[in-house]
């Protein structure tokens, strides 16, 4: 099971944090700090895996990938395969890239909710649900269409929309 998905930048600021088991906010922050301190102490050209038992508890593993200014981090237990998780990060990033065309850190920051929607399509309840970025994109596009539509509705003055609702 996947326990958490984190996106941090190279300064250690969280850009996205999603936990599939509840953790209080302070614990989350502590975890993010610990993860970052481990990641930034790792040299280049070493493996993408880290033993996360001291960070997250029994049987936890961590896989990360460094893209430009961002670290993508997945924390999971022994029922997942490390290499496969590495590729899941790849799927996630590829999807982001297709969604935002040349994704960069700014996109990640400003499209916070969209990031979450994308992640929700890929992982649900800590289990890998979808691994084809095309499928994810399809779902996301459908949402965006809806969003566009509803935005246009929202442009109608509030009083009118209230009237319409009746």
């Amino acid at each position, binding site marked *: 099971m996947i326990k958490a998905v984190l996106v941090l*930048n190279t300064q250690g*600021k969280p850009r*996205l944090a*999603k936990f*599939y088991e*509840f953790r209080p906010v302070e614990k989350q922050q502590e975890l993010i700090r610990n993860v970052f301190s481990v990641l930034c102490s*790792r040299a*280049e*050209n*070493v*493996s*993408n*895996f*880290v*033993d996360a*038992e*001291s960070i997250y508890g029994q049987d936890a593993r961590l896989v990360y*990938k460094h*893209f*430009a*200014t961002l670290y993508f981090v997945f924390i999971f237990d022994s*029922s997942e*395969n*490390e*290499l*496969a998780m590495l*590729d899941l990060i790849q799927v996630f*990033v*590829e999807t*982001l*890239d*297709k969604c935002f*065309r*040349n*994704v*960069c*850190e*700014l996109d990640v*920051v400003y499209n*916070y*909710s969209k990031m*979450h*929607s994308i992640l*929700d399509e890929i992982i*649900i*309840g800590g*289990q*890998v*649900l979808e*691994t*084809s970025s*095309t*499928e994810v994109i399809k779902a996301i596009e*459908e*949402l965006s269409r*809806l*969003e566009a539509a*509803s*935005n246009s509705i*929202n442009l109608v003055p509030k009083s009118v929309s209230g009237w319409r609702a009746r």
Partner: protein
Amino acid sequence: MGSQGGFGQSKEFLDLVKSIGEARSKAEEDRIVLNEIETLKRRIIEPDIPKRKMKEYIIRLVYVEMLGHDASFGYIHAVKMTHDDNIVLKRTGYLAVTLFLNEDHDLIILIVNTIQKDLKSDNYLVVCAALNAVCRLINEETIPAVLPQVIELLGHSKEAVRKKAIMALHRFHQKSPSSVSHLISNFRKRLCDNDPGVMGATLCPLFDLISNDVNSYKDLVISFVSILKQVAERRLPKSYDYHQMPAPFIQIKLLKILALLGSGDKQASENMYTVISDIIRKGDSSSNIGNAILYDSICCAASIYPNPKLIEAAADVVAKFLKSDTHNLKYMGIDALGRLIKLSPQIAEQHQLAVIDCLEDPDDTLKRKTFKLLYKMTKSSNVEVIVDRMIEYMISISDDHYKTYIASRCVELAEQFAPSNHWFIQTMNKVFEHAGDLVNVKVAHNLMRLIAEGFGEDDDAADSQLRSSAVESYLRIIGEPKLPSVFLQVICWVLGEYGTADGKHSASYISGKLCDVAEAYSDDVTVKAYATSALMKIYAFEMAAGRKVDLLPECQTLIEEMLASHSTDLQQRAYELQALTGLDRQAVEAIMPQDASCEDIEVDKNLSFLNDYVQQSIERGAQPYIPEDVRAGMGEMSNFRGQDKHEPSHHVLRFEAYELPKAPPPSKAAPVSIASSTDLVPVPEALYSRESQQISSAASASEAGSSGLKLRLDGVQKKWGKPTYSSPTPSSTSESSSQKPVNGMTQVNGASAVNSRVRESYDSRKAPVEISPEKQKLAGLLFGGSSKPERKSSAGHKAPKANASAADRSQESKTAGASNEAVAEKTNHQPPPDLLDLGEPTVTTDPPSVVDPFKQLEGLLDSSPGPTIDHSAGATAKVPDIMSLYGGTTTGEQSTSGGYSIPVSGEGNLLSGLSNAAAGGAPGEMTFTSSQSVKGPNAKDSLEKDALVRQLGVNPSSQNPNLFKDLLG
């Protein structure tokens, strides 16, 4: 809105993000965020906020909370948003709620109704959003409220919904298996879904179910195998391909499931051999995901009933992994190797150099994994090298968690395989010195007991020699500053017990040292107590020997200081010591007999000497004592009650009938502390719990009738608590003497000498292979020669551990001739010639030429009689083999530095990283390459973004408009 294009957020939010990005310190960032919280608090309660604005506020709340600040004031607004009819707002609401709330939060109850409604919605996107929330927010109590809808959705026409419904059901099963146990058949049904995606999703819950209970799913083996076969043969639609692999994640899950199902089951495994070997054979080791599949096929092959061909194929893949340049693959290779050596230990020998490379790699992850592997292959011939390595690494790291872990491993290996007592003590000293505060106290006690009890019951000389060597080493170490407390305790104890035993050191010298310790660590009460007791022993032994005793002046001051100590324990010890010095010789001998630390002290557990007193008291009308198990039952009862009172306070609504009472587990650890609330409990519940108590403690059936009366007493009874005296530790000697020694020393020496032979002939031939001599040496030490002794010592692995190990070792250290049993056991494993040799081990002596290089290499092993001609003859025959292996592995080794680089080039474009990682793809990667080729035209896109950002007042720090490293950092 238009000017902000794709960003979709107001300038305010962008400003916030920007200012946080520019914050130079954590304090500044906190100030900005707190400001933002104030603004949001104010704004969010304004009347008539446009919905789109509200949505943005919610997003900002989520953002604030991600940065570690409390946003709980806005939770209720997020909850409200889930009620909205507009799907976009609803989704935002659900998103925020799933991030904010845990499943036991009070607000959940307000959402359950909405979720119920949304699950019935016609719009499948609404249903999906609701299912997402279900996975995160529904707890055991609310499951029944949504369960019927979720089950219905398993048959929804959209596959996306079916998938999510399965996941939701899976989540329910994780949370509370009992509530959905009758619905598990649904997973089996969905396995046959038309949509491969849904089928793939079903594998997640099935994997969990199967790992809990393998046997009820054996019938699915055939189906899983056929699915795997179809997937591997690319029968799925092309859209499931990922980097040209057909549905790799489904393959991986299936392999994991098969590994579970085939474990130890020959019949089931036979069905799998073909498909697994096909996958391994066709495996694509050029891509990451291909390797992931290969790795899981190895795991599967190692887990199911072994098939030699399959293992061979798996070993080949492992070889490929280990020779690879990337650390990731090496890591996987080491892990897989660890799985395979259980089945065929000789595989490790082929990869000795690769393993050593990994051990010396700068990558910590790889190193640790390698240590895990080494731990698995430790045997008495290589324990010294491995433990030394481990200690070396242990000293070098600062991560306490891992330090503790590796220290405990060192101790475990040392206890199990130590070749000599001297080495064992040295090793333990090192472990204590560097990780003393992290190791379990038990280890220290074990060490003390070991030194006290000695290692061979019939060899007193060796014991006392060992003790004096321990004393020597401790006297050397004791001067070092900042020793861990546990270690000092051991030192004090040993010095007190044996410091003057061999007569080398005078009592005043030892007591002076002890006083120094007590002074230097004056705030550590335990150490002081140990030191005082040690002093007492020293003086007592002196007096018993009839010598005149003068307390040292520093000792005198120490006693005086402790007489006034706040710690009663220290005070008592000081008084005792003072009193002892005033006694005569006979009395002292009686109080402190020499070397009596391992005598058993008889403890009368029943306190029978108090019987008369108890009888008298009862006759005078005192309440009789209630045995502990009865009290435990009471505790349990109050525990039930506690739960019942507890839960409703969180959740007012109950969706289900009360459960039937479970028979309480017979554990005695039930808390008695809540017992005082007895009176508050409604009667029927008390009855019900008393009933169950009767079930649990059948022994007290007769008393149960009157238990109503006794119940009110438990507040009083609590005082008794558990018995406080500690039962005497059974002396391990008596227990372990019956253990048969499994590892003869002759064996061990044979192995290492063989190894030295190998080295010898290797050197003389001067093979043109360039491997650093240290590495070869290490390899030799680690993988120690022929496979025969290895097989043997893998049996030694299973030898009784820790407790018995002391005796084992002691037997080991004697020559094999000493115990006939050992020989008898060996005959089972060894070919006839060896049997002959072992039958008369005292006759064969070491030819000096063998001992010398061997000593050069290892330095540490004692030169007891061992290697025989047969042994070494067998080994020399093996030489060419090993040589060729050396040759083979170097090629891989030399190219190690090639490196696996994820470019972090100045281009802030994530894609550059992407493209490299996925390199090697061909047409199947269309989607990907296309996005790369768009890069050119995309400059326009980037420029637009850039312009927009400029509008917002953000200045890019470099030429590339996509790069905002500095800014956002």
